[in-house]
């Protein structure tokens, strides 16, 4: 009988928490060192593969070349100007698109009727791949800053609108009822329930939209521009200057990374109630 596994009571294997070794490594410093080591290994392998002739430097670039190019562009000041250009486009697009989109999305909470009327239009417009609008946007808004901002707005606004409306609709009806029983007006309920309860979703949206805004700016620059990281990447790749392409990509990555963490800072400021405790998290 004992051979029947099913007869045995099912007992989950007890997993122990991290051992002393793991605990020593699992610190900010420990994790950072591991992350840096991982990057260093990848770069070293890449450089070695190029040096050994397994990879064609002409097509993939090489870390040392990228580093030299980075310095050259930094020294000439081109990199700073290009980065600044893209950053301004993306941030303007992000702010305008996200603020306008979320405001309209939250505003739709006021009227289910209006929300139902406009819903199919929003879904339809949102299902157009916005990148496909890029050529028209350039036609309408020229080759300068405005067209890139417009493109970033087109990528971020509807996402914001849909997410904000969804979050507003999901806001706890009981909290709203409670305020109503206290005699609160609709505006009051909006301010005291809808806005605070949608903030986490809206901050989450910021993270997504930072990425979309950068896409808008860079694609706009690909199509027509005088400056910007997208412009730099595009022209460099048409000249097979792969090292410059990588410089542009890495800087874009760094820009996205910094913006993402800025949002973390913002989140910690305006959502203190969300990080009361991570200590209660179950260790498995």
């Amino acid at each position, binding site marked *: 009988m004992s051979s029947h596994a099913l007869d045995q009571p099912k007992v989950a294997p007890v997993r122990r928490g991290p051992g002393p070794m793991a605990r020593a490594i699992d610190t900010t410093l420990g994790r950072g060192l591991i992350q840096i080591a991982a990057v260093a290994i990848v770069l070293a392998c890449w450089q070695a593969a190029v040096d050994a002739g397994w990879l064609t430097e002409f097509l993939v670039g090489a870390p040392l070349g990228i580093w030299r190019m980075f310095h050259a562009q930094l020294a000439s000041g081109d990199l700073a100007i290009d980065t600044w250009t893209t950053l301004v486009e993306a941030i303007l697009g992000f702010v305008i698109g996200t603020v306008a989109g979320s405001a309209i999305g939250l505003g739709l909470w006021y009227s289910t009727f209006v929300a139902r009327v406009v819903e199919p239009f929003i879904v339809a417009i949102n299902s157009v791949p916005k990148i496909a609008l890029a050529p028209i946007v350039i036609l309408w808004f020229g080759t300068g800053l405005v067209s890139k901002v417009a493109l970033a707005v087109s990528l971020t606004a509807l996402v914001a609108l849909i997410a904000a409306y969804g979050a507003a609709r999901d806001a706890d009806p009981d*909290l709203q*009822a409670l305020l109503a*029983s206290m*005699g609160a007006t609709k505006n*009051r309920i909006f301010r005291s329930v809808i806005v605070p309860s949608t903030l986490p979703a809206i901050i989450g949206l910021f993270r997504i939209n930072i990425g979309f805004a950068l896409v808008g700016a860079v694609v706009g620059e690909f199509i027509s521009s005088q400056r910007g990281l997208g412009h730099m990447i595009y022209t460099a790749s048409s000249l097979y200057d792969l090292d410059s392409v990588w410089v542009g990509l890495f800087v874009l990555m760094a820009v996205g990374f910094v913006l993402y963490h800025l949002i973390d800072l913002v989140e910690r400021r305006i959502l203190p*109630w969300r990080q*009361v405790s991570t200590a209660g998290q179950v260790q498995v």
Partner: protein
Amino acid sequence: MTANDTSRTIQLSLRDIRKSFPARSGPVPVLDGLDFDIHERDFVSIIGPSGCGKTTVFNVIAGLLEPDSGSMTFRGEPVAGLRGRVGYMMQKDLLFPWRTVLGNVMLGLEMKGVEPKQALDTAREYLSTFGLSGFENAYPKTLSGGMRQRAALIRTLITDPDILLLDEPFSALDYQTRLYLEGVLLDAVETFNKTVVLVTHDIDEAVALSKRVVVLGNRPTRVKAVHDIVLADRSPIGARSDPAFSDYFHTLCGELDIQTRRKVA
């Protein structure tokens, strides 16, 4: 006895309140002509089978739901609902997660437009009366169930509402905490001279706390019986050991058709 007279003055009366909710198969009647009165400084418990419409009655009284028909009068005047005049404590301890205890407690005062400085003083006073001093800046999710419920109770009392509507306020708590909070509630009601309507599924609690018990029938519901509860001692434990307690208890159990044993045919 003049004291007895005021306690028999009708504060709120519901007459023939009907409410149905739309469902796929047509409207489902929930309240089927509800009639009852709440006296000044009354303590009425409403008991009834689960899903019979107790919360719905509260939503109607609070003015959150419009009845299909019927009328309500408050101190002799016809009213559509008591929005802004009730202290409604809902079934869950509905604290705002993004507000601290202090912020939650002050909510009602903010709604009334009380000056912030004064609201703060009042809130601190209540928090200390209810033993929550020191937790002013804590967020609700860091509190125990009993503390959350106390905070919700303060929020309900602090605006000095005409009627308290308490919807199963203690049902999620353990027995000790519940007895303790029942005591807190009784003291508060006595101190502040409040009218209380309490929904509970706990017959025990209804008998121990109330002056009167309204029994509702199955959905669609109407009032099945109203009982006056007369106990010498109204403290949570004292009431439960009163000789008359078990009579009331059995009568109410009978009216709710509660069977603790399978019937043997």
